[in-house]
């Protein structure tokens, strides 16, 4: 999926290790993010959040003058921008997921650049929708705002279920999405036993998006696991 529309977002990075800040900014700049703001401690972080008005904050949990959690709480008093935590502790993961502090994601150090970028994109995409999200597939384009598939000029409408299914797969483009996650997206919590219905929906989506539904090239089955959507190269 094309993420370039997200490159205009302003990112605030707060970490007390200057080398790490330098490395993370380099990775983000390589990727195309141009509006990057950094801060080394809580005080600077709050000031930067106030004056720069970032679209996403990436916070270290341990800061010299406080912790990332209270920094987030302070920022959240006037804005509800998404927050990703960088943590060097295993326990922090439990704390974040357990206490439901309202962070959008956490990344445990050490992390790989690719993993880091994926997480950042995922959070940004969730919070800032593209104005006209158009997905280009091998033999068609999908317009999510109109819930339509354009297959060589032939317009095929998507049902609500098909729309949700395609959207979930598109958000994870190129990655395997398990049947469990798809069922949850379509039928909500505890969706056990819907595998056959899911198969039926997949079949119908394939009829709309694939040139040859019996030999799919865009919506692939990963045996025993789930499905994978591939965008046009």
């Amino acid at each position, binding site marked *: 999926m094309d993420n370039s529309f997200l490159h205009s977002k302003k990112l605030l990075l707060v970490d007390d290790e200057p080398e790490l800040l330098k490395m993370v900014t380099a990775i983000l700049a390589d990727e195309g993010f141009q509006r990057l703001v950094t801060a080394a401690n809580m005080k600077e972080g709050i000031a930067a959040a106030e004056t720069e008005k970032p679209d996403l904050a990436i916070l270290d949990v341990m800061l010299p003058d406080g912790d990332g959690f209270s920094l987030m709480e302070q920022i959240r008093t006037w804005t509800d921008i998404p927050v990703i935590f960088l943590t060097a502790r*295993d326990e922090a993961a439990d704390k974040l997921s357990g206490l439901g502090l309202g962070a959008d994601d956490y990344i445990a150090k*050490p992390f790989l*650049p690719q993993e880091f970028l994926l997480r950042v994109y995922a959070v940004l995409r969730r919070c800032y929708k593209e104005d006209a999200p158009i997905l280009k597939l091998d033999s068609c384009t999908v317009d999510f705002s109109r819930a339509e598939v354009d297959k060589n000029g032939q317009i095929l409408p998507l049902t609500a279920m098909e729309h949700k299914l395609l959207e979930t797969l598109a958000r994870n483009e190129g990655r395997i999405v398990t049947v469990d996650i798809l069922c949850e997206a379509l039928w909500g919590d505890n969706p056990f036993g819907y595998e056959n219905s899911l198969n039926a929906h997949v079949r119908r989506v394939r009829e709309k998006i694939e040139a040859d539904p019996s030999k799919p090239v865009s919506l692939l089955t990963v045996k025993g696991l789930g499905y994978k959507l591939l965008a046009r190269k």
Partner: protein
Amino acid sequence: MKAFGKYISKYLLSFFAFALVLLFVNILAFSLTFSGIVSKEYGSASPANMLEAVAADLAASGISEERSQELERNHIWAMLLDANGACDWSVSLPEEIPTQYTIQDVAVFSKGYLQDYPVFVRNMEDGLLVLGYPKDSFMKLTGNYFPVRAIRLFPLFVIGILAIDILLLFLVYYFSKRKISKNTEPIMASIKTLSTGKPVALSIQGELSEIANSVNQASQVLSRQNQARANWISGVSHDIRTPLSIIMGYAGRIASDAVASGNIQQEAEIIRAQSAKIKDLVQDLNLVSQLEYEMQPLHKEPVRLSKLLRSYAADLLNAGIPEKCSLEMEISKDAETAVIECDARLISRAINNLVQNSIDHNPQGCAIRLCLACSDTATFLTVADNGVGLSAEKLQELEEKPHYMESTDERLDLRHGLGLLLVMQIVKAHGGTMEIESAPQHGYKTVLTFQIAIM
């Protein structure tokens, strides 16, 4: 009550032996004390002997000079009363003793005392022989009669009292012992727990409270040390993470830098891959120590294993596995709904370590299979590969080797890796079991068994 019976059988015999010894000692002490006096009083000067001697010596003219001297030597006086109560003759008769007696006088003194002199009488042919011993030399029982029934009961009474005494003594002994053992048992149990390295908290009142306090203190020292060790490892692993992030970040950047030469890219990729290994090691080390010292709170919740396994496999394939390796899933129909109480993050970690072991030990590539099956009460999670496998000796070695935390051996090759140790600990923390099967060139298979949660 069982303990009581056991206790009696154990101590009764020795207790009775002790009681008998006590009785014997008492009798010995009694006889040693009184034998001197008794033998003296039953010697030639005893009333019975003296009466006999005097009676034999008695003639119409009185007694011989020799006999009267013997009486005087022993401060005994003597007299003979005739049938009318008059004194026929006397030896050393004190002045206050009368010489004429009525039948009432005789009846009274013959049982006891005459003017405070203990007197003894003997019936003679021609009168009554009376011997008077010095005042306070003998005590006479003036009311010397007992009911025959009481006399007959006496031996029974003695035996009964003796038996009751012994029983009471035994009960006192038993209860005091039991009180001690009641207080020592928790101490013993605590020391046993302490020896496995787990903390204890004892609360005991009374004499043994000091020991209990010492045990508690030892436990506190132990848990403080464990806490310190766990904190130390967690601190080190924390401090390594940030520099490692920077190394991995830059290595990754160089590896994908189009401007860098192929050689440099390859080398950067090696740095990246090795850093990833250190990352896993650091995470494992921290987790192992947290689990070992029970610092890691388990976030157990009902988890559908099939979902967890698929999610893990999807993440692994999305992140990419070596080209020569493949991953296959096999979840039986009934295992699809199996739910266990577990910490999902830890179970994923255990599966990952097993899968990574298969990948690492088979650089030539292998097919990895993840299977989930279940019975009525348990689920069986299998991670298997078709790689090089292990020989029987190596497999045995693997199962018997002590791990990092327990080994005091300096030879590192005698311990096995952290990865498998962590799997063992995670399985243990979830009350499950782990089984390894392997044969050379026939792959390596690990089966983790967990109890199904009763919903």
